[in-house]
């Protein structure tokens, strides 16, 4: 099954290489990995989407926990969490397709961030499924470029207050 891990790390050079290298060396899968500054200066939060059974997931977490630059590892796959991805999609347009595309975009609550003569660029945020769905709908018009960030996530307040059992205890 799909696993989402929230990993708090020191913001130091090479930390992404340490974590990504661990995944490749141990033959673990990375579906996506995002990194950015965390709440505390000097720390970053990584959101890693991986896959595997319970034993593999536990092994991934324990191996991550051994990385000296890793402060905390939390498996948020099973807990209520806010998971978001951002994608920029540049799609081909012309006079006839433009209204049709606008019509498709409406329910997705996207932002049109750039418009040219023959194309427009859409910014979409949401779950991976939502992004996939939009890409699927836009594809017939001719997609020129896609850039996706990968998933970033945080536990919902309720889950955080109730349950810390998914943290690695060692």
């Amino acid at each position: 099954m799909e696993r989402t891990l929230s990993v708090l790390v020191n913001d130091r050079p090479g930390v992404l290489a340490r974590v990504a290298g661990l995944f490749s060396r141990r033959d673990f899968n990375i579906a996506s990995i995002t990194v950015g500054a965390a709440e505390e200066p000097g720390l970053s939060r990584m959101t890693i989407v991986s896959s595997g059974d319970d034993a593999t997931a536990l092994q991934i977490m324990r191996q991550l926990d051994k990385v000296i630059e890793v402060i905390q590892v939390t498996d948020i796959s099973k807990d209520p969490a806010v998971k978001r991805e951002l994608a920029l999609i540049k799609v081909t347009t012309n006079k006839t397709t433009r209204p049709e595309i606008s019509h498709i975009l409406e329910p997705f609550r996207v932002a049109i961030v750039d418009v040219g003569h023959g194309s427009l660029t859409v910014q979409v945020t949401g779950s991976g499924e939502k992004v996939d769905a939009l890409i699927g709908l836009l594809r017939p018009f001719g997609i020129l470029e896609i850039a996706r960030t990968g998933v970033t996530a945080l536990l919902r307040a309720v889950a955080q207050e109730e349950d810390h059992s998914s943290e690695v205890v060692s």
Partner: protein
Amino acid sequence: MEEDIQKPQIDQAVSDSHEVRTGAELLCSLLMQAGVDTIFGYPGGAVLPIYDALYSVPIRHILTRHEQGAIHAAQGFSRVTGRPGIVLATSGPGATNLVTGIADAFMDSTPLVIFTGQVTAESIGRDAFQEADIIGITMPVTKHNFQVRDIKDLPQIVADAFHLATTGRPGPVLIDLPKNITSGPASDHVLPESHIRGYKLPGAPKKEEVDALIAAINQAKKPLLYIGGGIISSGASELVRQFASRSQIPVVSTLLGLGAFPVRDPLFAGMLGMHGTYAANRAVTECDVLIALGVRFDDRVTGKLQRFSPHSIKIHVDIDAAEIGKNVAVHIPIVADVGLTLKEMLLRDVHLDTRGWHEQILLWNEEWPLQYHASDEDLKPQQVVELIAKHTHENAIVTTEVGQHQMWAALFYPFSRPRQFVTSGGLGTMGFGFPAALGAQVAKPDATVVCIAGDASFQMNIQELQTVVENGLPVKIAIINNRYLGMVRQWQQFFYESRYAESKIGSPDFVKVAQAYGALGLRATTFAQAEAALTEAFAYQGPVIIDFVVKEEENVFPMVPPGKGTDEMTLEWEE
């Protein structure tokens, strides 16, 4: 915890009296404060400031003939003392020559602190002369590594490196030192306390965990203690002895655990795994409770996983949480220091009747002992190991290279104390044993140190003969010379229809080699000559090579063929 682990003494007087002007001098001062008295290394451009600073401090530097020799020597030093081995090499090729030893130390959890020179910070990333990304290269084979970019960070990094290398699951830690840091200015500084956020150190086990462990043991009919290198790292050998003796639970050991439990103790069933004894592997297969202490269920131990100890409740105590459940599912996992766990176990009531089970194991050992066919014509490798044991009163520190001779040493030398046996278990590094013996002898100048080597392995770091001769290190090198890459040949015989592709290997005249370097060289081709050579070698005060010319096609038995279960041992090869 055990008397043979010496804690380094911080010599405040030395550090106080030492005036620090450069980064290199600061480094020397920090090393002395950390209790370092010996460094194994090799100079070069990027570490010249450090070598210049070392010139005037009371730290012994052992100049090897190759950086690989230096790091294996540091491993030997560490393995016999329990203290971190210290290595110093220059940038680029100096650093990359260490990689094999770093990986070896990582696999065998040997504490090392490794210093590498680096080109100046402004040259990093520009493919400067002798530049290598040693941080990137060693990331997967170190416990952690650091590059010093600001001299102000150096004291904390050194403190953290020593702390990381020696605590928890020990391992190698590397510090990369750009030349501008070591040649640039520094102010006096005291070695700080280590503080590493996110570094968790498991200590004692929880009470409930020990309750569960003891409850499982108390229900056992056929319990078995499976001990490994973690027992030695933790200094817990004496505690294992006490627990085994009190509970009368038989013991099997991994290769790296050898010495943690006396081979001559009647409770000892032998080494387990691919070349384990019949009794050990049968016991593992048939036991009902397997108590794994400081081990990692290596594939050379388990054989085919589905057939490994199929009927047992498995208890696993390890300081490294990631080892638990990595290869084998366990019923009672305990993430804790194995010594502290044993202490707790000794406080509990264990009431067992293991007499029948123990008798069964003794019977297996009696029926299928370790054996070989001695003959008058050939000198047998097993005989050589037995003779070495006899001539050293079973008391030597034994290092080995990797291959058949390593297994014969493991099986036929009766080790009785921890840190007596130094071998490359995880990485299986040919070229390890001789420099490791060198390092062991530096650490224990009065001990008898014997390197049991193969003719092929010895040639991988033969240049260190100059180092032992120059430093007057009386290491005895026993070459089990069968003119083959013996273990490769054995596998070719068994699994590749005796097609000995590139396993026949030539050697120089080892007696003349010894003489050329200024060591004593001896040769033995018969049992009587072997006896005489050993007598002469151990009477001699300096380094000796004994070239034991043994039967070529002798094999290591028992053997669990690769991919088979530990219950599918081969005791003798059926043609």
